[in-house]
């Protein structure tokens, strides 16, 4: 077919899955969700872990990335559904001759892991037997949407300036969401893997408390104090808390306290992956707040009204993707009273590639135009009496002529 390679993702609607589906499409894959789809533009086939996947989902698939995980019901007994479920999926991928299967495992996967999750992931890994079936042991994922464990950590850090925790000194190996997606897609594409298990995590460690302090500082712009606690009493306390916040439970605490350190530098090198330090990885959050403030001011200026939330989000994404990613150093009065920009907007000077106020105003203008709230100011589909239109032009011309010398003086510093 005239098309890119086909990638089937299980668990595509999850925290990692949604980001992976988007990254894969940017990378040229045709993405198909097995199970729930992250958004209506990703085609999906109904499926639940444990069922036989529909044949049309796997036919012609170049790779399958298996993220789906079924959390056991509390107090469930007997064999965990993830093991037969994955086996069933693998039988189908083998039948269809899928050339690569990547299973999302965990850095905690060990036969003798402290937490049940780590032991389970290890057991699922054992069901992968063919040389085309790889396990990715994933470290602590951060960034991306506020969901999963990352979302929980963010909630905690935002909740309190003082965080008592167990295992704060434990080394962890984080990985940013985009790096993880890149790694998983590289595994899906890799022609000749040299091992069956790859560690997708930072090869250098950071202590858990340092990680959380960095999150607090760079993402939420506040200090955080981490107090180390002994494990026993904490587990008791957590059992109480888990009744109010079900996401916090014994298993999660054990998972964090018992994370092993893996030596995966060679894995990362083989994949050609680049993994940033947490400080570099979180820096965008700190800048984001300032860009948001700048966007609110500039969009208000060009729209004449407060921008809708979605447009503001687009401004931030726009600056991060195409505008250099850093806020301009605009003085507070301009940010507070955006109308003053009318006196301070530079005359001309569209600096190509230099991230100037003029360029940002242009981006704000494009965003304004991209929605009816702004486009209606620009395009007159109803018509206006001609004399009114001419009079308007004369009036605006006069005002702009008066403003011009002021802008030439005040705007010079923003060119």
């Amino acid at each position, binding site marked *: 077919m005239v098309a890119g390679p086909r990638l089937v993702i299980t668990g595509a609607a999850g925290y990692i899955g949604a980001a992976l589906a988007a990254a894969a499409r*940017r*990378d040229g894959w045709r993405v198909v969700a097995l199970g729930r789809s992250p958004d209506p533009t990703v085609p999906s086939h109904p499926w639940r872990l444990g069922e036989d996947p529909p044949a049309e989902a796997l036919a012609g698939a170049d790779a399958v990335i298996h993220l789906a995980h079924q959390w056991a019901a509390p107090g469930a007994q007997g064999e965990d559904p993830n093991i037969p479920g994955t086996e069933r999926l693998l039988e189908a991928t083998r039948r269809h001759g899928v050339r690569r299967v990547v299973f999302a495992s965990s850095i905690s996967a060990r036969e003798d892991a402290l937490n049940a999750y780590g032991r389970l992931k290890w057991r699922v890994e054992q069901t992968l037997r063919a040389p085309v079936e790889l396990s990715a042991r994933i470290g602590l994922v951060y960034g991306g949407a506020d969901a999963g464990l990352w979302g929980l950590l963010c909630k905690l850090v935002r909740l309190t300036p003082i965080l008592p925790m167990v295992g704060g000194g434990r080394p962890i190996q984080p990985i940013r969401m985009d790096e993880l997606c890149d790694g998983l897609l590289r595994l899906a594409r890799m022609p000749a893997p040299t091992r069956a298990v790859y560690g997708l995590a930072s090869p250098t460690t950071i202590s858990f408390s340092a990680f959380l302090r960095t999150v607090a500082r760079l993402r939420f712009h506040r200090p955080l104090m981490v107090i180390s606690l002994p494990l026993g009493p904490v587990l008791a306390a957590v059992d109480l808390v888990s009744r109010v916040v079900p996401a916090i439970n014994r298993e999660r605490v054990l998972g964090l306290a018992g994370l092993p350190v893996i030596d995966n530098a060679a894995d990362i090198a083989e994949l050609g992956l680049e993994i940033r330090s947490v400080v570099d990885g979180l820096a965008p959050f700190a800048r984001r707040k300032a860009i948001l403030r700048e966007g609110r001011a500039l969009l208000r200026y060009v729209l004449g009204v407060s921008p809708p939330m979605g447009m503001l989000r687009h401004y931030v994404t726009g600056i991060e993707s195409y505008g250099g990613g850093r806020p301009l150093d605009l003085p507070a009065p301009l940010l507070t009273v955006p109308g003053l920009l009318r006196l301070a907007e530079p005359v001309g000077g569209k600096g190509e590639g230099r991230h100037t106020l003029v360029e940002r105003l242009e981006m704000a203008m494009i965003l304004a*135009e991209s929605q009816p709230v702004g486009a209606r100011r620009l*395009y007159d589909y109803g018509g206006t009496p001609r004399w009114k*239109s001419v009079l308007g032009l004369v009036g605006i011309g006069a005002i702009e002529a008066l403003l011009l010398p002021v802008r030439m003086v005040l705007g010079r510093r923003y060119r």
Partner: protein
Amino acid sequence: MSDARPVVVVGSGPAGVSVAWPLVEAGLPVLMLDAGAEAGPSRVAADRSSLASLRTDFGTGRSWRHLIGPTLSGLRNVGYASPKLRTSAAPGFGEDYAVALGLDASGFRAVGAFSPGGLSAVWGAVVCAFQGEELDPRIDAGALDESYRRVAARIGINGSDDDPLADYLGRGLPLQPPLPVSSAAAALLAKKGPGGDGLTVGRLRTAILTRDLGDRNACDLGRACMWGCGVGAIYNSADELPALWGRDNFTLRWRAEVVAVESDGSGPVLRLRDGEKVAARAVILAAGVLSTTRLVLAARGGGQSVPLLNNPAVSFALLSPSRLGRPLAAVGHGAAQLGFRQIVAGKGELFGMLYDADTMSAVDIMSHMPFSRPGAAAVARRLLPAVMLGLGYLPGAYSRNRVTLAADGGLKIEGETSADCAATMAAAGKALRRSMARLGAHMLPGSFRPYPPGAEVHYAGTLARPEDSTADGAIVGLPGVVVADASVIGRLPAKTHTFTAMANADRIGRLWAARLSGV
């Protein structure tokens, strides 16, 4: 003896597809390689609302998805290059190109793309036939005429032979009925100038369907052409790939970037980015002028320098005061409405096209106004109904660009125009201002602005000298290597050249189809 090696066509742009068809029809095994990635359907959502509705109707919601794209790629700064790269090109379009080619351009804005359909994903779809002196004398005019007709029938062209510009644009092509022009364009057409001022205004021929063709649909008159076509009415060579793919003897590979053309003694061998080698019976390069030129210069070795033709281009704005206050049209097409040809006494000619200003993004127009943004927005709102934007081209003979293969394998481009280019452009502007004013359309002061060399693309002629290629596209000194894109067209009139590049590729394809299949 049958040869199992395929004929390899490099590039899926208009020239690549046009050269591939005759080879495929002759039953030859054809392998097309493209550096781009096929990322789903290239078309804009078919259920996109009309431009007027996207701009004013709060009910449609998510207008931004169509106007700046779901990944917000419409926010990237495309500099002085065509604003269309911003509004309708796919995310990442053209971004990896300069890096892959090792481009080092001075005084020249190089545009190219590794994507399905090449630059036809963003072209203006204006179709002109080269005639008489306009045509590179090396090209067989009779064979090219037949190719013009073949390509026209294949891609679908609308227009009329009953038109003031018909003689100039070329008669005798199979044409679909013309697109309806806007009221602003109709008003301009209805005005009869005094004549004798060298200006002809008429309808254009565009590769936009007014009747369904294959799985492409006729224009839905939604006026959002600049944001890509939702129904496939505007020709994009990528839309022809499924039909080619339907042939048993055609294969296409994406992400297959050819980095070198070599030889193994028995024939050409292509080296791909990932190191793979592809042996070919013959290689037909149609990768776009800059890519093709780099491959050929590198294969021949030595620090060579070749000319690069392109049309010096200009943009301008015309104001018809009688139209101030009129409502903007909600229905119609949003491509070029009219064509014009301005003869400049003793200095050649300027050919170009006029667009309704509201069919483009007002932001790009506002960026030329010295006003504050709210002031510019208020001015734009009042001016748009009365403004047409023009694009004009001088013949390629006014360009003096040179392309050199650097020692590191990169392509060095030096942009330059002839000594009389600026004066000719100014004279053309003056003549156009005068003759358009007689039609009631007044050029806005300061709006006549030449583009820097290269920004409006229209590249050609790098390998068209007899020491570089033969008239049938074969490269001198590289047996089995043929060039089918505009690199082998040695003359550029003021007219847009894509249609001619396609027809010439078809001509070359037919020649080689006969030769390779031993007929």
